[in-house]
C-alpha cells in the first residue's frame, strides 16, 4: 500500500465526513474474490476499511457515532453495499474496538482484539517500529516490539479504567475553555510555559485548568500543559521500565489530530533517547524516527483486514444487516429491560415504610420539629447561660447554642460573603438577639479559618473538623462505629473506636462519588436538587452504571440515554452507585464489616432520601445487621460538635475569653487586595486579600510586605488551598523558627537516626 492511496484526512472534530478514495481501475472489486471489510468500533468514532481479497484498500472512512455505535455501523454497511457492492454470504467482515463484541455477532462478523489488530498492521506496514503509542477516546495503549524476525515478540500495555492520559481528557478541558475543535488541533506545545495539571483525573484536570485560567494563565499555556500531562501519564504508567526506542509510531485520533500532542511526544522521546544514549538506526536524525501516519486512525481496521487474509475463507462471512436492523429497532430496548435492574425499592409498601422511618430522622425537615426535642430556628425566650459553637464553611457559616445540659436551644446561619469577619458579625448579631445579656460560657469554632478567627472572636476552642463531627455524632448516637459525611465536593468517612476517631478517609484524589456530580447531572436534566429523590423513587427500572471515574460515568450516562433510559431512571441509577463510589472507589474500604454495626449518615447529600435508601441498602448488603441512621442536624453537626467541645472545656473549669458582642460588632478592619497579597507558593498565584483587624493584644506583623503594627491581627482570605494561609517566606520563617524551637525541646529518635545513622557521608552530593 503506497502513500499515494490516501487522501489527507481532515481533523476529527471538524465536520465529520466520509473520505472516499478514488478506486484505481485495477482494484475494482472482482466477483471471484471476496472483499474484506475491517470495522473499528471505538468509544467515539467508527472507522472502516474495505479491501479486495488480496488486501488492496478500496475505501475507508470514519465518523463520530455520538454513542450510537450500532446505528453508525448500519449506516456504513448499507453504504458499502450500495456503493462498493459489499455482498452478504460472499464478502467477509471483521470487527475490532470496544463496541465490537456486541455488534459483530449480529452481522456474522468475527471479533479481533484491538491491540492484536493494531499490532498486525504495524508489523506489516512498519517492520522497523519498536514502540507504538495509540491514544484513543477513552483508553491508551502502548506496544513494545522486541527482537527481530523470528524472535520478534511484543509487549502490550493498556489502560482503560481512568480518563487520565486519553483523548477525552484533552477534549473535556478544551470544551470547558471554549476552544473550538479546529483551533485545538492547531495549538502548539513547544514554546509555552508549562503549568502543573493533574494528569491523573480528567475532572481534576478540568478544575486545575479553571484555576489556572482564573489566575490569568493564557489558554495556550493551559493546553500545552494538558499535552504535557497526557504524554507524562502515558510514559509514567505505560512504559514500565521499557525505553520506547526508535522507530516510534504514534496512532489514534488524538495523536493524529493534535499537533501539540505530537510536539510533546517528540520533545519527550528525543529527551529520553538523549539521556539514555539510545542509538538511532543508521545514525539518522531522531526526528525522522517518530512517525504519525496520515491514516493513523485506521490501523486497527487495517489490522482486521490483515488478520482476515490469514483466516479460513468461511470465517467472518457477512450475513447482511437484517439482524443489526432488528437490534436497533427492537433488540436493544428488550435488552435494556433485561440488563437493567428494578427500581430503588421493591414495593410501594416498603418505600412508604422507609420514607416514614427516615424522613423523621432529619430534625430540620419541615414538619419534623415537633417530633424532636426543640424548635431550633426561633428560641422561645431569651437564653440565659449557653455554650456557642460556630462552623465557618466555604458556602455557609452556622452557629448553635447549647445549654450546659447539652440541649440544642438555637441555631442560625449566614451565607458566606467570603469575608469571615462579616460572616462572624452576621452570626453574632443573630446570637445577640436570643442571648442578649445572657452569659456565653464557652465558644468553640470549627471549619475554614478557625485558627485565624480564634483570636479575633476570643474563641476558647478551635476544633478540627473531624473532632467536631465525631463529637456531634457521638452525642446523639454514643454507640456509633462510623460516620459517613458526603458533602458537595468531598467525602469523609470517620471510623470511631472507644469514642475517638481512630481512622478516617478523606477523598481528595478523585471526584467520583461526591454530591456535586449527582447535582450536576440533575441540573442538566432540568431537575431541581430538591426533586431528585422523588424522581429517583418513581423510576420502576434503571440502567446499570459502572462504578468509578466520573468522566467515564458521564459518557456512560449519555450512552444509557441513547438506549432509551429516562432522566429519572438515570438519576435512580446514579443514586444507586453513589455508595459504591463513596465506600469502595473513593474511600477504598472493601471490608465494611470490620468497621462496625452502627453508621451515621450526614452531610448535605444525605438530605436526599434516595441516596439514603441506597446507602442503607448498600451497608446492609455488607453488614446485614447494620443500623444506619441519619444525623438529625446533618447540616449543623459541625457547629454542635464545636459547642460540645467547648462545653467539655468549660466543665473542666475553663473561663471564656469571648470578646463580647459589642467588640465583635465594632471590630475595625481594613482589607488589602494588591500585588503584595498575591500568593506565591505555587504557579497558580491566587489573588488573596488580607483583612487586618484592630485587636487589643494583637501581635502585629512587622516582617510582612504589608506590615501591621502591634495591636493588629491579620486574616487571609481568597486563598484556594491551606498553604495560602501562610503569607510568604517571611511568615514561613517565623513559623518554622517556632516549630524548630519546639522540636529541639522534644526530640524525635528518627531525627537522630537521620543525622547520625549516615554520618561519614561526604557532603559532595550535588543533588
Amino acid at each position, binding site marked *: 500500500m503506497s502513500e499515494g492511496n490516501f487522501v489527507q484526512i481532515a481533523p476529527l472534530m471538524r465536520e465529520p465526513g466520509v473520505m472516499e478514495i478514488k478506486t484505481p481501475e485495477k482494484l475494482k472489486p472482482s466477483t471471484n474474490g471476496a472483499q474484506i471489510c475491517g470495522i473499528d468500533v471505538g468509544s467515539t468514532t467508527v472507522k472502516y476499511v474495505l479491501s479486495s481479497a488480496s488486501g488492496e484498500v478500496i475505501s475507508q472512512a470514519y465518523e463520530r457515532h455520538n454513542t450510537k455505535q450500532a446505528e453508525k455501523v448500519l449506516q456504513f454497511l448499507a453504504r458499502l453495499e450500495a456503493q462498493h457492492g459489499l455482498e452478504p454470504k460472499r464478502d467477509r467482515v471483521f470487527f475490532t474496538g470496544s463496541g465490537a463484541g456486541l455488534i459483530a455477532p449480529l452481522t456474522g462478523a468475527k471479533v479481533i482484539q484491538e491491540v492484536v489488530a493494531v499490532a498486525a498492521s504495524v508489523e506489516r506496514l512498519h517492520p522497523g517500529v519498536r514502540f507504538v503509542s495509540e491514544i484513543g477516546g477513552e483508553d491508551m495503549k502502548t506496544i513494545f516490539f522486541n527482537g527481530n524476525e523470528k524472535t520478534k515478540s511484543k509487549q502490550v500495555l493498556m489502560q482503560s479504567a481512568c480518563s487520565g492520559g486519553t483523548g477525552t481528557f484533552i477534549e473535556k478541558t478544551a470544551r470547558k475553555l471554549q476552544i473550538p475543535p479546529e483551533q485545538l488541533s492547531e495549538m502548539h506545545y513547544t514554546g509555552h510555559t508549562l503549568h502543573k495539571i493533574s494528569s491523573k483525573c480528567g475532572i481534576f484536570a478540568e478544575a486545575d485548568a479553571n484555576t489556572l485560567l482564573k489566575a490569568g494563565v493564557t489558554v495556550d499555556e493551559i493546553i500545552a500543559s494538558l499535552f504535557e500531562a497526557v504524554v507524562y501519564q502515558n510514559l509514567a504508567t505505560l512504559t*514500565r521500565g521499557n525505553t520506547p*526506542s526508535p522507530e516510534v509510531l504514534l496512532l489514534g485520533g488524538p495523536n493524529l489530530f493534535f499537533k501539540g500532542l505530537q510536539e510533546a511526544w517528540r520533545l519527550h522521546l528525543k529527551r529520553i533517547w538523549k539521556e539514555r544514549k539510545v542509538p538511532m538506526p543508521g545514525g539518522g536524525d531522531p526526528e525522522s524516527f517518530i512517525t504519525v501516519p496520515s491514516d493513523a486512525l485506521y490501523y486497527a481496521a487495517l489490522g482486521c483486514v490483515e488478520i482476515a487474509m490469514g483466516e479460513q475463507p468461511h470465517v467472518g462471512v457477512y450475513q447482511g444487516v437484517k439482524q443489526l436492523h432488528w437490534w436497533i429497532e427492537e433488540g436493544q430496548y428488550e435488552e435494556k429491560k433485561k440488563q437493567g435492574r428494578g427500581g430503588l425499592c421493591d414495593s410501594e409498601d416498603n418505600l412508604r415504610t422507609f420514607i416514614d422511618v427516615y424522613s423523621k430522622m432529619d430534625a430540620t425537615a419541615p414538619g419534623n420539629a415537633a417530633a424532636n426535642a426543640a424548635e431550633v430556628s426561633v428560641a422561645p425566650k431569651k437564653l440565659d447561660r449557653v455554650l456557642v459553637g460556630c462552623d465557618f464553611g466555604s458556602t455557609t457559616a452556622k452557629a448553635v447554642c447549647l445549654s450546659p445540659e447539652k440541649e440544642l436551644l438555637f441555631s442560625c446561619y449566614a451565607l458566606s460573603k467570603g469575608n469571615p469577619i462579616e460572616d462572624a458579625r452576621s452570626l453574632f448579631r443573630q446570637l445577640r438577639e436570643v442571648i442578649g445579656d445572657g452569659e456565653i460560657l464557652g465558644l468553640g469554632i470549627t471549619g475554614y479559618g478557625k485558627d485565624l478567627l480564634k483570636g479575633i472572636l476570643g474563641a476558647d476552642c478551635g476544633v478540627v473538623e*473531624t473532632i467536631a463531627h465525631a463529637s456531634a455524632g457521638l452525642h446523639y448516637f454514643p454507640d456509633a462505629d462510623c460516620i459517613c459525611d458526603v458533602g458537595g465536593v468531598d467525602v469523609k468517612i470517620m471510623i470511631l473506636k472507644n469514642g475517638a*476517631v481512630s481512622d478516617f478517609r478523606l477523598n481528595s484524589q478523585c471526584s467520583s462519588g461526591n454530591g456535586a456530580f449527582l447535582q450536576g447531572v440533575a441540573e442538566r436534566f432540568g431537575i431541581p436538587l430538591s426533586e431528585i429523590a422523588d424522581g429517583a423513587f418513581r423510576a420502576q427500572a434503571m440502567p446499570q452504571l459502572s462504578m468509578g471515574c466520573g468522566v467515564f460515568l458521564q459518557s456512560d450516562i449519555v450512552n444509557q440515554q441513547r438506549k432509551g433510559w429516562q432522566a429519572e431512571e438515570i438519576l435512580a441509577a446514579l443514586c444507586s452507585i453513589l455508595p459504591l463510589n463513596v465506600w469502595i472507589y473513593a474511600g477504598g474500604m472493601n471490608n465494611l464489616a470490620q468497621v462496625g454495626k452502627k453508621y451515621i449518615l450526614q452531610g448535605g447529600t444525605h438530605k436526599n432520601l434516595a441516596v439514603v435508601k441506597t446507602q442503607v441498602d448498600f451497608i446492609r448488603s455488607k453488614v446485614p445487621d447494620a443500623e444506619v441512621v441519619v444525623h438529625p442536624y446533618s447540616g449543623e453537626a459541625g457547629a454542635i460538635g464545636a459547642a460540645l467541645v467547648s462545653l467539655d472545656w468549660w466543665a473542666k473549669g475553663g473561663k471564656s475569653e469571648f470578646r463580647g458582642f459589642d467588640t465583635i460588632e465594632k471590630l475595625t478592619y481594613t482589607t488589602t487586595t494588591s500585588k503584595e497579597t498575591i500568593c506565591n507558593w505555587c504557579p497558580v498565584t491566587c489573588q488573596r486579600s488580607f483583612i487586618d483587624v484592630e485587636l487589643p493584644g494583637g501581635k502585629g506583623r512587622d516582617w510582612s510586605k504589608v506590615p501591621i503594627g502591634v495591636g493588629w491581627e491579620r486574616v487571609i482570605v481568597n486563598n484556594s488551598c491551606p498553604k495560602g494561609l501562610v503569607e510568604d517566606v517571611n511568615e514561613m520563617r517565623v513559623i518554622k523558627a517556632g516549630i524548630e524551637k*519546639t522540636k529541639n*525541646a522534644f526530640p*524525635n529518635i528518627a531525627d537522630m537516626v*537521620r543525622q547520625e545513622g*549516615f554520618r561519614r557521608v561526604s557532603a559532595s552530593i550535588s*543533588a
Partner: protein
Amino acid sequence: MQTWFGKKASGGSPPPSPRKDRSGLRVGIPKVLNVWSTSQFWVGFLRDLGIESENIVFSSDTSEEQGREFGKGRGTVDCCYPVKSISGHYGELIFGQKKKINIILSPMIYSLPSFMRGHVSETLACTRVMAGPENIKAGFMKESDVFADNGIKYASPFLSMAEPEVVPKQMYDCLKDIFGVDLAECEHAVEAGYRELRAFNKKMRDASREIMAWCARENKPCVLVLGRPYHMDPGIGHEIESDLQAHGYPIVWLQYLPIDDDLMNWIFGEEIKAKKIRSALDISDVWTSSNSSNTNEILWGAKVAARFPWITCVLRLSSYECGMDQPTYTPTQKIVEAAGTLFFKFGDLDSTKPAGSIRIRIETIVHYLAKYSDQIIQKKLVLLPPDCPLLAGKEKTLAAVASNEK
C-alpha cells in the same frame, strides 16, 4: 540482658596486612530499605577495607523529584513504593554526583541482625525487599548496562546478616573481584561493621531511654512509632511523626526502644514469672509465626506500647499494599488498645505526601492526646509494679538529650 551478639569479642584488632590501597575508590550506597537499620554496619565495613570516609556516599532521602529526575521510566511493576523508589536512588548515584562513584553497593539482605534474635523463630527480611535491588537493577540493564556505560561496577552481596559467621564468606564471594579483597580482610571488615552497628544501636537506645525517663519524671506522654526502618526516610514515611513532635510530644521508634534488664523486668517481669512468656523479647503470646524480623519487632513494640505508661499514643505507619503489614494491622491495634493506649494508623503511604489529610489527622490526634493522656498514664501505671527504674537514674533534660545527639 544477654544478647546474641554480646557474646562476640569486641574491640578492633589491626586489619590484616598487606592491604590494597583503596583510598581512591568511591562507593555509593542507595539509602533504601534495610540499609536504614544497617547503615553503620556499611560505614564500619567499608572504612575497615580502607575506603576513605568522604568516599562513602549514601544517596539522599527519597523524594518524588529524585524519582522524576533520575528514575523516570526505569521503574518496575511493583506496588511497593519503598522498592520502586530505589530506581531514583540508583539514578542519583549514577548521574547525580559531582565526583563520579566507582562502585554501587546495594546489598540483598536476606536476614537481619535483630535484637530479638534467639527469642523468635527467624529474623528474615521481606522477600520483596530482599530482592528489591535485583528487581530495580533490571530496569538499568534492560537495553544496555547503564552501570557499565557510566564506568560503575554494581555489587549486590546476598547477606544473612542474622548469622555473622557466614557474612564474611558471602561478602568475599561477591566482592572479591570488585574490591580485590581476600577472605581474611572480609572477616575483619565484617567484624568492624557489626561493632559500629552495635555502638550506634546502643547510642540510639540510650537516647530513647533518656526520653522515656524524662516522661516518667515529668509524668508527660510520648508517642511511639510502629513502622519499618525505612519509614524514617522522609520520602517514605513523610515525616508524619514530626508534625506531632511540633506539638510538643517527644517521639520514640520501636527499633530503638531501650532493652535494658531493669526496664524490661519492670514491664514484663510479672508475665515472665507467671510463665506467660519466656523472656521480655518473647512474642509467642501474640504472634506465633515469628519469621519476619521487622514484623516481629513491630509486634514487640506494640506490646511495649500497651504496657509502658507514658507511651499514650502509637502511630502506625504502613506503605501502600504492604503484604507483610497486612496481617499485623488487627493484632497490633488490638494489642496497643488493650489498656486504652491511643492507636492511629497512617496506611497506604505512597510517593505523594497527603498533606491536607495528614494535617487534619494530626490535629485530631493532638486533641485526643491532650484529652486522654493523663487517664491513660494512670490506668497503665496501676497495672505495673510501683518501682519504675526510670525514676532512679540521674536527671537529664530533654533538650540535653536532643542536643547531645546532634
